[in-house]
């Protein structure tokens, strides 16, 4: 089994983006591409070829779900693990759509950036077992 390597991280809050990126790089040893907006992610996703996409549902201008909908034609989301971060109690879309958009896990805020690497590894292993 190939190990988890490349993570596309979409987060609009700069401080969270930095802390998360450092934690993932330093604690998980992953290659992380951090994007501050959905547009930036949409531009770079195809080139970056992520193993896993970690994105916040609440993003300015374009929501996380909308971003996934636009990414779907560009990359194979069934082979790319998608993990959503949400602060809302409700599901951001129907279970069917979430599955179609490759969402494997909804992580509810608050999340601990220091445990994030371990959590993502766990999801990756579950995906490939």
């Amino acid at each position, binding site marked *: 089994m190939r190990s988890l390597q490349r993570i596309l991280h979409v987060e609009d*809050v700069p*401080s*969270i983006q*930095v*802390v*998360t990126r*450092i*934690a993932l790089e*330093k*604690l998980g040893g992953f290659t992380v591409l951090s994007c501050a907006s959905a547009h930036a992610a949409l531009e770079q996703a195809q080139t970056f070829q992520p193993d896993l996409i970690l994105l916040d549902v609440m993003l300015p201008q374009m929501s996380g779900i909308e971003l996934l909908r636009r990414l779907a034609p560009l990359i194979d989301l069934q082979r790319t693990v998608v993990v959503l971060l949400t*602060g809302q*109690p*409700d599901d951001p879309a129907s279970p069917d759509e979430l599955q179609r958009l490759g969402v494997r896990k909804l992580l509810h*805020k*608050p*999340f*601990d*950036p*220091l445990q994030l690497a371990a959590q993502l590894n766990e999801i990756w292993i579950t995906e490939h077992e």
Partner: protein
Amino acid sequence: MESSNPTPAPAPHRELSRLAALLRYEILDTPDEAAFDDIAHLAAHICQTPSALISLVDDHRQWFKSRVGLDVSETARGVSFCTHTIEGQDVFEVRDARLDQRFSDNPLVTGEPHIRFYAGAPLTSPDGFNLGTVCVIDAKPRSLSEEQRTALARLSRQVMRLFEERLHAHRYAEQAAMQQALLNSAASAMLVTNADGYITGVNPTAERLFGYSEQLLIGQPLTQTLFPIDALVRRASILSDERGETVEPGFAVLTAPLAEGQREMREWRLLHRNGSTVPVLLNVSAIHDEHEVLRGYIVSAYDLAHQEHLQLRLQQIAAQVPGLLFQFCWRPDGNSSFPYLSEGLEDVYGLSAAEMAPSIAPIYSRVHPEDREHVLASIRHAASTLTPWQFEHRIDHPRKGVIWVEARATPMRQPDGSVLWHGLVTDVTERKAEQLELDKQQEMNRRLLEALSEAVVACDAEGNLTLFNNTARIWHNLDVHDVGPEHWAEYYRLFHADGETPLSMDEVPLMRALRGERIRNQEMTIVVNGTVRHVLANADPMFASNGQQSGAVVVLHDITERKQIEIMQRDFVSTVSHELRTPLTSITASLGLICGRVMGEVPEYLRELLEIAHQNSKRLSALIDDLLDIDKLYAGKMRFDMQAHPLQPLLEDALRNNQGYADSYSVSIEMDQCPAVAVHVDAMRLEQVLSNLLSNAAKYSPAGETVALSARLVEPQRVRVSVSDKGPGIADAFRERIFGKFAQADSSDTRQQGGTGLGLAISKQLMEHMDGEIGFDSTPGAGACFWFELPCHALGEAAT
């Protein structure tokens, strides 16, 4: 018997009167009487004749009351000589019947007893009727001397006197019998005395009334026997004063007034033989004979005991009636009187019996001047219409001042045109004052109700709405309407606190109170025209003085503003918490990366400060997380992912996750028994509750102690999970609010013990959302045991 010599034919009218006079003496066909026979013998002797008769002539015969020398008792009138005698006024004499053509062929002349001589004197009644004769007869012709004729006439008058006496004797006997009967049957006791006052006769009533037999009374002095001496002395002294001369205290007391022609009628209390007294009305009359000579007295005594008894009864009844009972008579001439007034006269009008005149004037003068005209007018109206009179008015009472009375009476028209009233006057001052006070209070209550900012609604025992105060009318935009309790919620727009679910009939506070409940702070809403008004309802049943429920009342307090402030506060906390969380997350994570040496070694001199910063940023995060949880719980926005989980692994996970925290307090956690059951929960939320209980137990345990985690079945389908520590326990003062928000045993505790004070409040909410229950047992100083209970089922069985 035909005769050429017609007998004299008397005038028919006069003859009838004569016969009536004859019959009046009741002498015909009576037995012989010596007095009459003596006269007949005298007549025969004087006239020297063998026969003499006293003869009475009725319509068809002559009947002999007495006869000498003759055997027949009567003969036919047609042949009688006497018929001729009674035609005249003088002695009728026939010297030789054979020579007198009126009698020559008379059978008494031609045959037995061969009468030749006849002389008769008529019996003339005082009113002038000749009833018969005294006559003498001889079988030889002869004549009477003048002396003999005179003697015969005298004898006839003597016979008439005997008739009169005989008649009087009869009449007298009858009268005497009647008088005796009257006396015997008299309702009054009758005592007859001689002129000296000694009893000569009594009637049975007297025997009965005084208890003596007739024999015991006859011959006794009346006053000494039946009259109390002190009463006689009293009366004698009064009479002496009146008459200016001494009246002895004896029989004279009764007779002295008669001497002046006064009728003596007076009430006395006489002595009964058994020593008791008998109330009587005594009447004394003198008996004079025809020569005005005093023969004695008749004393009649009318028994007043019955009347006295009635009077006593009326008095006793009247004494029980509060107020004045009266009988009032209003005569056509304008005069008036009070035949009866009870003793309430003093109480109501301040008048003594002595002050009372026969008229209405003394009472009228007591009526308050302002009310007099109305009182009089109302009486006149009632009298003219003969309708019951009822009138409240004021009395100027000499002792009590102005009092209020209620007078009521029923008028009755009497045959003489007067109006007789029976009525009652009662003092109603107190009632009036109470009424005034009540009116005042009611007015005050009404004003109070209208001024209240609370809405007040009341209903009677039958569920009819009786009161909506001003606020209630405004809030409902409706007033009291005839709406049954089953339609109250719909009609008056009553909803649950959510402002959407209509109240059912059984949930309406007023209805619940009507059924006997006391309602405190029931939250509900009134939704009128889309505006939601949040109110707290307090309702109570109302009871009458006899303990019967008389209705219910509800007071509604508007909490809309408070609700809005609460929502604003919650929104504010929620917003602030959200805004705080992002920067806190980055600070905590940054410090975590540094302190976890992810970014390389940390210089020694910075390490302690960075640790402090890291720990406190974590506490802040925990506080924010708790605040957001509470907010979600209260807003009902927290999602629960309820699934069946075996209990034991959940407990073991929680133990493992909290072991590190416990270690930091040098406290160990041990797992005791756990039944093989599954619970239906949101695993993450249950873990949150367990973490809270375990971390609290570790935090409050002395170093080196053990926290015990265990579970057991309390019912076949219910499991209790307990966390026991050896800490200080829960102080009594804290028990009440331990599950409240921001609760810690001591407010100074928060910092020392580390914690948000929200943990137990959140745990309680979480457990209740999962159909569980949370609680604790504790003895201060002997540790605490926090527990929660959940429905469960045995492993391998489907949840029911």
